[in-house]
């Protein structure tokens, strides 16, 4: 029985964390957040060099061949750092190709994705909150007609993994005819989203797409839960730090029992939930029977808890927490993204209920 990160995993986490502390302090995250594209090539390049782009891809294709737990721990750390960038879409698209692609497709894409020479993203949702594979209506085929929404960093992507009717997946390339990209006004400006539309756009199905699209969704739920945990615990750190420095009535406000107990409750909300995403990530590779449900539960619970932490953090910072200048908003909006992307907590609680046979 060992439910703790391995030394390698702890080292990985420390490395990423160290990198983000140096290269992406809040001032930098904010600059990118407020910038044109929400993307910092240099920052992403650095992550690629750490092997993050191919962490979960087979070594045969230049990846590190690691597991979901490793990827999730990185996701937590990125959420903790509030780092902008295309990690989520790139990781999920790569996973989809690895699990569902033909050898040719894998050979064509995985090495470039692992090396960061190409950027991939996922186009799953359709307007009206249609996130889940069974919801997709976009007609399959080698020419696509229609649209997808909430596509992370579509404008940067070289290749799209697109969800199609029947829960299948298809590849569309950047240059494909009839592909149009319309930016959406996403609330997390560090993870921009776009609407993409197809008009007779050439596409290539992933042979095993329909079998594994739900696995890709589950992976997404785990990564979002991990990101939310990272963001939530970062906010708690900020609040505690603020409570130790900010003075009122002649003492640091951390002396006030009411605030102290609010911070204690925040810790109680978020800290034990770390194990929830760990378990879901572990189950993804090792207890597959429980993987879908524990992923749903982790996403629902963690994004809800983190959202409450975010609200509490605004209060804990007093008026200033409500301002654009205060860094709380960066993580507040990051959590809004984690919460809504791939479906709200209510959706996944209902899924968890069904999966339990309730």
């Amino acid at each position, binding site marked *: 029985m060992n439910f703790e990160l391995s030394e390698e995993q702890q080292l990985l986490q420390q490395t990423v964390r160290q990198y983000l502390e140096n290269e992406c302090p809040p001032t930098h995250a904010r600059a990118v957040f407020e910038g044109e594209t929400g993307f910092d090539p240099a920052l992403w390049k650095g992550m690629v060099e750490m092997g993050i782009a191919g962490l979960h891809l087979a070594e045969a294709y230049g990846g590190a061949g690691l597991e979901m737990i490793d990827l999730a721990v990185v996701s937590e750390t990125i959420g903790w750092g509030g780092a902008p960038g295309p990690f989520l879409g790139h990781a999920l698209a790569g996973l989809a190709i690895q699990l569902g692609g033909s050898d040719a497709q894998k050979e064509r894409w995985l090495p470039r994705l692992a090396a960061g020479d190409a950027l991939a993203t996922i186009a799953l*949702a359709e307007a*009206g*909150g249609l*996130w889940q594979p069974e919801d997709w209506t976009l007609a399959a085929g080698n020419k696509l007609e229609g649209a997808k*929404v*909430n596509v992370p960093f579509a404008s940067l992507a070289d290749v799209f993994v697109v969800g199609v009717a029947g829960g299948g997946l298809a590849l569309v390339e950047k240059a494909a005819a009839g592909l149009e990209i*319309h*930016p*959406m*006004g*996403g*609330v*997390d*400006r560090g993870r921009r*989203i*776009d*609407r993409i539309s197809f008009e007779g756009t050439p596409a290539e199905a992933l042979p095993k797409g329909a079998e594994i699209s739900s696995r890709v969704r589950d992976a997404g739920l785990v990564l979002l839960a991990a990101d939310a945990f990272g963001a939530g615990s970062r906010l708690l750190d900020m609040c505690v730090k603020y409570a130790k420095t900010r003075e*009122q*009535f*002649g*003492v640091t406000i951390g*002396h*006030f*029992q*009411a*605030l102290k107990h609010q911070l204690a409750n925040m810790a109680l909300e978020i800290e034990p939930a770390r194990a929830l995403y760990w378990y879901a990530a572990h189950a993804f590779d090792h207890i597959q029977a429980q993987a879908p449900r524990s992923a749903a539960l982790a996403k629902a619970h963690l994004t809800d808890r983190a*959202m409450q932490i975010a*609200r509490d953090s*605004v*209060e804990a910072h*007093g*008026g*200033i*927490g*409500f*301002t*654009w*200048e*205060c860094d*709380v*908003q960066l993580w*507040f*909006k990051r959590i*809004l*993204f984690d*919460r*809504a*992307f791939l*479906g*709200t*907590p*209510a*959706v996944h609680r*209902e899924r968890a209920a069904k999966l339990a046979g309730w």
Partner: protein
Amino acid sequence: MDLSYGKQYEDFRAEVQTFLARHWPPKGTDAGQNKEEGARRFRELASEHGFLNRAIPKQYGGSEQEPDEIKANIIREEFMKARAPGDVRGIGTMMLVPTLLEKGEDWQKEKFVAPTIRGEFGWCQGYSEPGSGSDLASLKTRAELIGDEWVINGQKIWTTTAKTADYMFCLCRTEPEASKHAGISYLLIPMKQPGIEVRPLRQMTGGADFNEVFLTNAKTPKNWIVGKRGEGWLVSRATLKHERNSIGAAAQSTAVFAGLVHLAKTAKRGGKPAIEDSEVRQRLATIEGYVRSHEYSGYRQLTLNARGENPGILQLLNKLSSTNIGNEVAKLALDLLGEDGLLDPTAAEEMVVLPTGSRSWMNQYMYSLGIAVAGGTANIQRNVIGERGLGLPRDVFADRSPGK
């Protein structure tokens, strides 16, 4: 118990309606004139009829009516229905004028009251500072009397309407050697002068309803002080008892709840209208319990205020009720918004943006947090409820606070 207004008041309501029918919107000769001028004239007229500026003595441009909360409420209701300009709103009429009338010198009332209630003088409030927050005793902005001018240096924050205001009523430390509150004075300061810089304070929602005000050797005449030197904190408290309009707060809760029900009818859950979902129904009805309690308690306060009786703890609970309801509404709204929760309420138009409905809800979701800012955080409120409302002992730190 009688929730109708009763004959005498219904007559008064009719009177107001007749007046409005005749004079708003401006007819005949007045019709031509520009909108602003029309509003000004109408207000004058309404004031002459005793419908506006009721609490203000005639000599200062008011209509000096017997205080009657119910008439006041009827006027608010009817003027709103007719979209007619009512009493000039704003911190000047709400806080400065009552303060001047109670604590100001005659020449100050002469000079400031009439133009303020006519909307010609705009005001902003200079209380909070970056360092202080709810703890006024610790404020640092200093005013020094040099010759026959006050010279003011410091910084204020959370200053709404600072960009447009003509004057600021401001708490400054004038007696550095005096302790805490004793050293504070209440000054009136012209905003349009080189010594004052206003910087908008952007909110996380993207909007900018607040400002920072930097005072660098800003100047104001020696006698633009309300009350004596060092009495500023006392003077500022005078306004508090004028804060009322409990109905207002409740009405807002009722309105936002109606909006939430509408959202629940239009939003979808599991393919069906969300309002058909048992969890949504239970949560809506639970929130409504709080909303109606707030609304009906407002009736009760209105009644008590009308009788000049003290609503006691009910008054103290008002603000926190609004805050809590706002929070619960915002949370359910976010659940109902679903994927729209991904979108920025203030995103540029050329993008794919939120439907107007959702947009305002996303704003509300974040803004419901901002409400707290406006005046003391929830924790301060709870202290007040516990101490003034329930008579619990003041906690050690609060003893140092100006709360008493």
